[in-house]
């Protein structure tokens, strides 16, 4: 009903010619059946008609990133279909235009521009890697679009044209390190990661936090994306005997890393060393094989196994739509939040205009999120809980810890740069 009230107020303020309760009553009935006139909710020429609104989906469905991004595409489509089944947004059905970024950053920029300039979409759900986000960012800022970005990432960014539905680095890292220090009595850490901005920035924050807590880092190493020979670092790990291996290896390299770790006799199910990762979701475990990563811990905000009503509904709807053998990782869930957050912001603003949606976004809450409850911060990131999961041989995580409170997103952490 709040929506209706917003609409009526919106109308009345614009059409002061109409007056009296008769007109209001008429509008109540009309509002319930016919949506508000397209011009009123869209003053900037977006692709909004009397009964539809166009949005864009921009992920890689071909190339090396396709395996990771497919889950996000599925989640976004599912959310859009569910929203449409509930009557759409401001009485309009969402139509999506899907574009393929092809795992190629310039292509992302080209397609983003196409969605904003030619298709005039009201929002875009998309991107996965930081590189693709960095490539489209100037496009979104120049043409004033709205991007819902699902991946956990390195922070150091806060654009008025992006809502970050994944966690930024501090949310993922601080709680994880606190937990491993307290619960596992860790004193020394070995940091390693793939060689690009996200693992490097994350390890920088991790190192600062580790040292702040009076523990020490005994090694820090990076390997190129796609690297498959981890024997030398595994030997160093065996030599230095750290309490915690802090791994931010991404993509296909994970398969080699965990298999070689196991082959080298580092048994993660034992007390020490603890393996803590922020980059392996259920999606990656499919490639690694549950038996190879059994006993590792992951720090992120969502696991498929979360035991709450929202998540049960989400998982069953997801499986019904996309098949029973599917797994749902952290990013997939964050991607699912995108269309819902956008819907809530549009309805709060009573308009599809990007500027109004932006103003309406901070403070938007979702109580129906599969991860539980999230709220949009002033800085366009989400307040969310951080959870620790224990990897099981069946490829799922078992929840072992979650923060009591929501973690505040802090993309520019003081003292960690």
């Amino acid at each position, binding site marked *: 009903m709040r929506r209706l009230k917003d609409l009526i107020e919106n109308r009345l303020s614009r059409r002061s010619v109409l007056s009296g309760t008769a007109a209001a009553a008429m509008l109540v009935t009309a509002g319930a059946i016919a949506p508000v006139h397209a011009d009123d909710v869209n003053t900037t020429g977006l692709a909004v008609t009397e009964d539809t609104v166009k949005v864009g989906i921009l992920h890689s469905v071909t190339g090396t990133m396709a395996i990771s991004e497919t889950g996000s595409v599925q989640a976004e489509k599912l959310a859009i279909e569910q929203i449409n089944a509930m009557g759409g947004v401001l009485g309009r059905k969402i139509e999506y235009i899907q574009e*393929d970024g092809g795992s190629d950053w310039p292509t992302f920029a*080209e*397609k983003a521009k196409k969605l904003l300039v*030619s298709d005039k979409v009201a929002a875009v759900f998309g991107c996965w890697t930081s590189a693709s986000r960095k490539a489209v960012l100037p496009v979104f800022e120049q043409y004033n679009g709205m991007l819902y970005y699902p991946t956990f990432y*390195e922070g150091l960014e806060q654009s008025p044209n992006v809502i970050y539905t994944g966690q930024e680095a501090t949310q993922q890292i601080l709680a994880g390190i606190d937990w491993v220090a307290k619960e596992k009595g860790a004193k020394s850490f070995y940091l390693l990661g793939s060689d*690009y901005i996200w693992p490097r920035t994350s390890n920088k924050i991790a190192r600062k936090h580790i040292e702040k807590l009076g523990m020490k880092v005994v090694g820090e190493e990076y390997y190129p*994306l796609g690297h498959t020979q981890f024997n030398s670092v595994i030997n160093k790990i065996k030599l230095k005997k750290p309490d915690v291996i802090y791994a931010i290896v991404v993509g296909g390299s994970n398969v080699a890393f965990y298999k070689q770790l196991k082959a080298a006799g580092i048994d993660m199910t034992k007390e020490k060393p603890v393996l803590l990762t922020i980059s392996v979701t259920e999606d990656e475990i499919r490639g690694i094989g549950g038996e190879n990563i059994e006993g590792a811990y992951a720090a992120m905000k969502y696991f498929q196994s979360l035991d709450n009503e929202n998540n049960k509904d989400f998982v069953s709807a997801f499986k019904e739509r996309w098949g029973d053998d599917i797994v749902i990782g952290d990013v997939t869930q964050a991607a699912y939040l995108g269309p819902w957050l956008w819907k809530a912001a549009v309805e709060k603003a009573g308009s599809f205009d990007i500027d109004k949606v932006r103003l309406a976004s901070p403070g938007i809450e979702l109580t129906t999120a599969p991860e539980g409850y999230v709220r949009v911060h002033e800085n366009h990131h989400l307040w969310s809980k951080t959870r620790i999961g224990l990897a099981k041989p069946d490829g799922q995580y078992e929840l072992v810890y979650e923060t009591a409170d929501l973690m505040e997103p802090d993309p520019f952490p003081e003292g960690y740069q």
Partner: protein
Amino acid sequence: MINLKSFMARQDILALLILAAVIFVAMPLSMDIFRLNLFGKYLTYAFVAIGLVLCWGKGGILSLGQGVFFGLGGYCMAMYLKLESSTPEATAIQSTPGIPDFMDWNQITALPWFWEPFNSLTFTLIAIFVVPALFAFIIGAAMFKRRVGGVYFAIITQAIAAILTILIIGQQGYTGGVNGITDLRTLKGWDIRSDEAKYILYYVNGALLIGVLILCQFVLQSKLGRLLVALRDKEDRVRFSGYDVANFKIFVFCFAAVLSAIGGAMFTLQVGFMSPSFVGIVPSIEMVIFCAVGGRLSIFGAVYGTLLVNWAKTTFSETFPELWLFGLGALFIAVVLVFPNGLSGLYRSYLAPHVDRWIFRKPPEEPSTGPEPLGTPAYDPEAVTRPAE
């Protein structure tokens, strides 16, 4: 025009005029600025493809590393633009204001020495030509003087492309890593992102391309051009005739490198960023495909080939986001099976005879240009029956 005719056959002039008409009139009239900007982006790849015609089609030197030079040109431009947009005011949020954002993310606190000169536009413009030329010269001299050629040369160029990509990605504090250099805004205070700037850049790009085509035509019609073809077909004979084969090869390789770099610099200006995904093996091979689709012996064919492949890429991927690669694959297979000499081969076999008859032979008002240039296949009545060039 007299001057032009001495090295351009009438058919080539016609081809040039048609291409100019397409670039300067037809496309701007039929497209909105977004599509035109895309088209301009395709045209920057055409520089590389033209270079490959000279290097590979005419000279027989297959380089699978042209992306390296495209990237060098593009990065030189991007470094200048990035420095200009990284003013202390614009980067006040960083721990070290005044340096490019990615350096700050990588804990670098001062501008590296090799970035310093890129504060100057003059230096940058010179670097766009000199850096790739010098690099190509070093590779060329090292290879050709030792008589490394053919497949071995192709493999080495590919290795260089791989090495440079790894270097760029690995040294992300200095290069922007896998993200590339993004968020470029202005050139000497002139906003390159506005629609007006895009139109201007598009025309500059088109004019450069036409200029390059004329220059290449000049090179090909000169003695040098014929020597290139000769050393492709019988390298030993050229050597025994007393020519220093290696020097010619080095020259054409450097020339192609500079052309690629011009394309790269124009790419950066029009698209607004540069990343290692243009430097590596895959884009380099793609550039060879552009050239092959166009027909590797024709500089005009190379331009159309580039446009066709990129247009197909964009259109297929917009229409079938999950299946488009199959469509593109089918196109390449069709090229190899059905018209192995590319678009220019098709033109030579099917259209050129008619063009000859209707435009150049029939109308009486078309005056004869005197002695016809030698070695121009377009004038050879046997051209149709010969294996198409």
